[in-house]
């Protein structure tokens, strides 16, 4: 359950429980290697710059495109990376 120390949300259809206060880019690493998107030539990509510049960590949060490195993990949010499509 939700507590002050942890938050729970859905990542690519799976429930995830992480320490409160961590960024979504940090949380992606729970499923190593923590990919965020598939590039135009089909490569899996993970967060690179960590500071909102490179756009490699862009994901859908509740249907809106957001940078995972600039998004705090919050209770109840739904995150889709598109990197696990076809696997689930």
């Amino acid at each position, binding site marked *: 359950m939700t507590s002050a120390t942890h938050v729970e949300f859905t990542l690519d259809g799976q429930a995830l429980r992480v320490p409160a206060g961590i960024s979504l*880019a940090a949380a992606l690493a729970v499923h190593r290697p923590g990919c965020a998107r598939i590039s*135009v030539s089909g490569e899996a990509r*993970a967060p690179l710059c960590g500071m909102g*510049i490179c*756009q490699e960590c862009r994901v859908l949060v509740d249907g809106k495109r957001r940078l995972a490195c600039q998004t705090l993990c919050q209770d109840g949010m739904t995150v889709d990376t598109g990197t696990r499509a076809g696997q689930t």
Partner: protein
Amino acid sequence: MNSERDVSNTELLIIGAGPAGLAAALAAAPSGAHITVIDDNIAPGGQIWRDGPAAALPAQALRLRESVARCANVRVRCGTRVISVVGANALLLEDAEHGWTQHFTRLILCTGARELLLPFPGWTLPGVTGAGGLQALIKAGLPVRGERIVIAGSGPLLLAAAATARKAGARVLRVAEQASLGNVAAFAAQLRRWPSKAMQALTLADPSYRAGTQLVAAQGRQQVESVQLRQMGRTSTIVCERVASGFGLVPNTQLGQLLGCALSTSKGAAQALKVDALQATSVPGIFAAGECTGVGGAESALVQGRIAGLAAVNETRAAQAFWPERARWKTFAGLLNHHFALDPALRQLPQADTLVCRCEDVTHGALTQCGGWMDAKLHSRCGMGACQGRVCGAAAQFLYGWTPPVPRPPLSPARIATLLGDLADAPKDKP
């Protein structure tokens, strides 16, 4: 569109809540002006004072943040980015929920710097990050306990990243600095002139630190499994889970350029916003401070921010009192840039099939066929993806000598609703 929500007004708008932006806000606050500070990150502090569950902020950073928070006339809005310029005194902003037009009387740009990320074989593999990038991700909670990490590139940031990674429980196997041992030692010897920087000299005793060592490639199938380094002509392979690579910093000039601010033209250096003695840009009413005016470190950013904040509220004489301190840190910045200058041999780092533009997946081989940026964009869409050339533009300047493309709106990917709101507001907002 809801005009009450979509239009906002402030006397002094500051872009960036790092050391420069916070110092500017604090210096300008006694004027009583209504001040708004925006930043696209989760918390104030910029990159050097990035907050997070695994961050330990220095006392100076906490004091500055608390002092700004106590100013009733200063509002700090994090998670807010600039999308575009709307007329002479307004910017289109967006946060996680909505977009709006922010009007201002005066503007201070404290947009900081980003890491210079140079392409090398394997750099698109998951597990490769920037060096400052790794530090930022760890502070934000990235778990690295027990991981083997190699840090490579150039500049003091490599050591800072190594310290952060070790504190988080990682095993930093190697810190590879491309500058020669002679240059690194000469830099360290100068540090006693800046006592607050002397601690950095001590960390140079890091047993995993190697000067004159260059990155060759990261290897792995789905993610990083090893890295190759070269020192004095000998190549060695280190098995690791992560490679963090950064080659110094590049000023973030995009917003300034979009506003029409001139760039400084110092030989060979990265483009920076041009400012006068009062930190004023070439555009009346717009000031700039910190790394976006040239990379110089947090102390330099703090004093520049103070000067800009005072100048923006017409406290010219008070601003002048800080000129000697600014000059002192400018000398430090000069040394840093001189001793960690990039070896031209790093231009041989990418192979023909190495991607240079990670947004549009354009290879080094394809770009070497192009005559310049215009040609590259026409033939390959290089630099036209989501990052708008922020990564490949700086890399191409180093690799091919191409002047980075002039930024165009939107500055970062925006939601349609924000852009439509802009169109709806534009007619009545025009002066």
